[in-house]
């Protein structure tokens, strides 16, 4: 926010749902301190608008039709470090919250939030606060732990691939085909990864993969 405390907060909304854009538009219209500068319904549109207008706050839907909301957030943050990004999401899982933090978004709001909540959140992030609930923090630190546990296993790319396939339920032969390696080679990777994980069977390896948050 440039200027003194009474400066207007310039807002951009990027969401492919007209209803959500309407809610944010009326929030800004009803509030003298907020000014809706532009609306976008795609990620590309959001990026272009932010480039052109350098808003104070970008209210961003994570589920845009043309690109990942995370990529939009990351790009906008890179190009406009002063722009605060307030993410709107229908997801409440650890992965979504964590990825939102990875792209350094300033806040995370549920899509079904009412006008007053959204208004207050826009003002709050504009003043430099972060909008994440205790539950979000709890989800994020849980995910962070899994990220570090995985890093500590020091699994190689190949071993990670193999583990992911084991968790998927593929046989050694199927894995050999997928990875374009001999079955012996696969067995060797599997042995190595069992040792690093401290497991003895595919079942145990699969369970461990889940704990480590490995995408299957």
């Amino acid at each position, binding site marked *: 926010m440039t200027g003194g405390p009474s400066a207007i907060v310039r807002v951009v909304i990027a969401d492919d749902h007209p209803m959500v854009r309407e809610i944010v538009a009326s929030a800004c219209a009803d509030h003298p301190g907020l000014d809706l500068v532009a609306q976008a319904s795609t990620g590309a549109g959001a990026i272009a608008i932010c480039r052109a207008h350098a808003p104070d706050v970008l209210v961003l839907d994570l589920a845009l039709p043309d690109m990942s909301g995370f990529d939009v957030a990351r790009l906008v943050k890179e190009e406009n470090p002063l722009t605060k990004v307030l993410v709107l999401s229908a997801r409440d899982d650890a992965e979504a919250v*964590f990825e*939102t*933090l*990875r*792209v*350094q*978004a*300033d806040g995370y709001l549920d899509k079904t939030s009412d006008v007053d909540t959204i208004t207050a959140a826009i003002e709050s992030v504009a003043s430099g606060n*972060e909008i*994440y609930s205790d539950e*979000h*923090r*709890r989800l*994020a*630190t*849980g995910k*962070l*732990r899994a*990220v*570090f546990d995985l*890093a*500590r296993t*020091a699994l190689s790319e190949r071993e990670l691939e193999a583990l992911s396939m084991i968790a998927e339920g593929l046989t050694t032969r199927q894995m050999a085909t997928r990875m374009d390696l001999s079955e012996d080679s696969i067995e060797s990777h599997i042995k*190595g990864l069992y*040792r*690093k994980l401290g497991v003895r069977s595919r079942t145990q390896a699969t369970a461990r993969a889940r704990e480590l948050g490995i995408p299957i």
Partner: protein
Amino acid sequence: MHDKVNGSDIGVVLVEPLSMVRVGLGIWLSEEPGITVDAQAASADEALQKIAAMRRRTSGVVLVSLGLDGPNDAYWLIRSLRERFPTFVVLAIGANAEASSISRALFVGADGYVDKRVEPEEFLEGIRKAARGDLVVIGPPITMLGRLPGEIDRHSETAGVLTEREREVLATAADGETTKQIAERLGVRQRTVTTHLTHIYSKLGVNGRLAAVRAASKSGLIARVAHE
């Protein structure tokens, strides 16, 4: 005063080289109901000795100051604690630590980071949450959590490196010594040598001594073996 160690009491071990900070933090924590200061140490070695000597308690929260430096620094201690005393929760404590430091602490096994500059109640809440099993990062803004994974690649490289001791063991093994001879040469127990070798194999991703020596001398972790 320590007689009534009831079940819900959190035992804290404080490792801080700055005397006044250690003394002050120790006194304040001791006065907090529900917290008992089991031991204080000014160095990593002292901390390990005292924890090893603790009989009454086999778990608790160890606060490790990132200010510990030297060959046995904070990260060395955190890693050692995780290996030797896995039932203890380990928290790195610092003053406005960088993302890379916090990330490294977590990577070597810390259960969290608490900044010394937060309000006392926040500090205590951090200890309590960690004691319950949560990973905590208290002090930095929540967006710091998102920056920590990005720092990991840097630490992975150093994770493959062997410790002083491990290098000694492996270098001695490279001379063709048996476990017994290595133990005698280094003045430790045979079981210690076996443990070191297990860690070495794991770090280098190999199965046996010969492979370990080859891998280590190839990447310069030990001096090149003459007859290779």
